[in-house]
């Protein structure tokens, strides 16, 4: 085995085994994440099936422009993340830092827009609870408490997603710090690679959340 600059942890036979183990571990972790979000998606399926009109009425209250921009922002951040992993693989140490910083900025933009959206919901009395009085005059047949279910799921799902983004932003800051000191080389850059998997996963969750929450019944020209 060629000598690496990495510290091989004592319980592994070689660097390849160490990397394999970490990679499988990350994939399995992402599977547990799918199951974790899965519970919320099940609830979404059950309640949207039960109250389709209330969900459409709730969806109407979301700002599609914000949602679309955020979707584009996340897709771009996935690209910059992939570029960071690629730069690591070919050993361009400065490019790793650059692309990680770009990813961090895009993640920050997403969270910023999300915060604005949440604030709008607060102002519009669209947060489930005691002060829940959304404007749904256009839907006389819809019960307010069913719209509340929609918003409970909206906040539950996007909130959990945002928490994952915040954790991601924290981890990426750590990676930038390490990368700026040249920690990642073409031979060993497992953390960058594994974080890439995590970041793409969080993006993909949003790709599902966006149509499910923002685009309900849009084709009917609401």
């Amino acid at each position, binding site marked *: 085995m060629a000598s690496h600059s990495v510290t091989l*942890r*004592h*319980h592994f*036979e070689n660097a390849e*085994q160490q990397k*394999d*183990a970490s990679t*499988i*571990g990350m994939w*399995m*972790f992402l*599977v*547990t*994440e799918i*199951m*974790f*979000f*899965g*519970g*919320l998606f*099940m*609830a979404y399926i*059950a*309640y949207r099936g*039960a*109250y389709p009109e*209330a969900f459409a009425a709730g969806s109407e209250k979301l700002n599609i422009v914000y949602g679309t921009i955020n979707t584009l922002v996340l897709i771009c951040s996935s690209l910059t993340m992939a570029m960071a992993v690629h730069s690591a693989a070919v050993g361009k140490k400065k490019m790793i830092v650059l692309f990680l910083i770009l990813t961090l900025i895009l993640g920050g933009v997403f969270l910023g827009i999300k915060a604005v959206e949440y604030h709008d919901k607060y102002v519009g009395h669209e947060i*489930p*609870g005691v002060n829940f009085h959304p404007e749904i005059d256009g839907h006389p047949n819809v*019960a307010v*408490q*069913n719209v*509340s*279910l929609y918003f*409970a*799921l909206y*906040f*539950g799902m996007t909130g959990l997603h945002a928490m994952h983004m915040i954790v991601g932003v924290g981890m990426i800051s750590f990676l930038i710090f390490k990368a700026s000191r040249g920690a990642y080389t073409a031979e060993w850059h497992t953390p960058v690679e594994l974080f890439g998997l995590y970041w793409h996963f969080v993006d993909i969750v949003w790709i599902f959340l966006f149509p499910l929450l923002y685009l309900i019944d849009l084709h009917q020209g609401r």
Partner: protein
Amino acid sequence: METVATAVEREPRTYLNVDHTLKSWLLTEDHKRIGILYLIVITIFFAIGGLFAALIRIELTTPAGDLVESSVYNRLFTGHGIIMVFFFLIPSIPASLGNFLIPLMIGAKDVAFPKLNLLSWYLYVIGGSMALTAIIYGGIDTGWTFYVPFSTGYASGMVMLTLVGIFINGFSSILTGLNFMVTIHRMRAPGMTWFRLPLFIWSLYSTSLIQVLATPVVAVTLLLAALERGLHIGIFDPALGGDPVLFQHLFWFYSHPAVYIMILPAMGVTSEIISTFSKKEPFGYSFIALSSLAIAVFGFIVWGHHLFVSSQSVYAGMVFSILSYLVAIPSAIKVFNWVSTMYKGSVELTTPMLYGIGFIGLFTIGGLTGLFLASMGMDVHLTDTYFVIAHFHYIMVGGAIMGFMGGLHFWWPKITGKLYSETWARLSAIIIFLGFNLTFFPQFILGYMGMPRRYHVYAPEFQVFNVLSSAGASVLGLGYALPLVYFLWSIFFGKKAPANPWGATGLEWQIQSPPLPENFEITPVITEAPYHYAPSEEVVHVG
């Protein structure tokens, strides 16, 4: 390995004596020490859960509610259930024996992620302390199932803290399962192919699969229940359009497979014990191995049998009923194979073997009565009666705890390097077996007669069987207290255990007792199956 034989006299270096400080234990990354940390905390939880059970049985000796009021009684059975299920049974065999044995059995130096392993233990301790705090200060009266809307709207006590505790503990379980799966995939020694893995490893692999896939679902479910209780978001509240049955679906999507988290490792222990003490390789190795996986997979598609009376459609009920029957097939395969392994073997009735045989008998009763409950018509009659209680205690106590005790007695010499008193141990195994049956068999009859669960006042005609059950519980309690004494005694005064006291062929028995901190002097190369009793008495050469 001649060096070991000579070194034994001179206090060899072991994972126990490399360092004695408390810090070396609390910050250890050694899977063997982490296994022991788990064993200690698990034992504490078992004792507390058992104390709750004792109070329940004392109360039920008379038909009147004379020892405690109903609100206290509700807190007793809830505390008993939560502690035993989430903080004893789920981590019992995998986190203690599994942690200790997986690397030894597959020829690895440690699990794949030792730091994560230690983190899992801390999460377990933190989650457990939170739940325990809630149970002691104020208690919870929801039952261990936290059914909504009672738990989210009406229940008194510290439900929130308990939910958060179980949520945190869930991550301990997920991370342990993940760690074990990666370890079994990537850390096997050269030559250790999948079909050379010990059956205990197969069962733990299947267990881990469930832990990784099912636990996140219950985590998010309990999180939603906590949000519902704290913020009234309406997700499970019928007044706000929410559906309480959705909670039951999500809850049992985890909690049915959770039973297999408890029973599969016990089955793995039994496979090891039966083979070792019959001096025969297991009959139908690959069938036992793959039936573990089959049980894990089937386990995910049968949860609806808990909702036969919860407004589930009758057609869904029929499908769930048939699927539940299917689980009997891989379970029966195991029972037949264990019995066939003993057939014409030279059976040695050591303590672990007594537990192994006890497991087979009690698991069979527990499994067969499960079929009663899986049939829809019968279940309507038996739902929420003592029949259900008896059934799942035959699986969880008669199955899982017998397996745990069997495994503990089997590997105790390897873990501690000491021998316990075989006489006392056999005696306690017999006491536990008798006490267990006396406790829970009358409950089948009570349930069939219609005594409902979770009541502390009952009709006088049920008293005879309740008294029998309580008497059995005191015998059972004695049976569990004895090992605590002779195990502790063995640590201080027991005879030194040889490397292989049972003449077993597994890899873990070919190294010294207790093992080196790094397990193996050099990585072993595996050239044959783990069980090779019949053709020759050859031993795997390690190092």
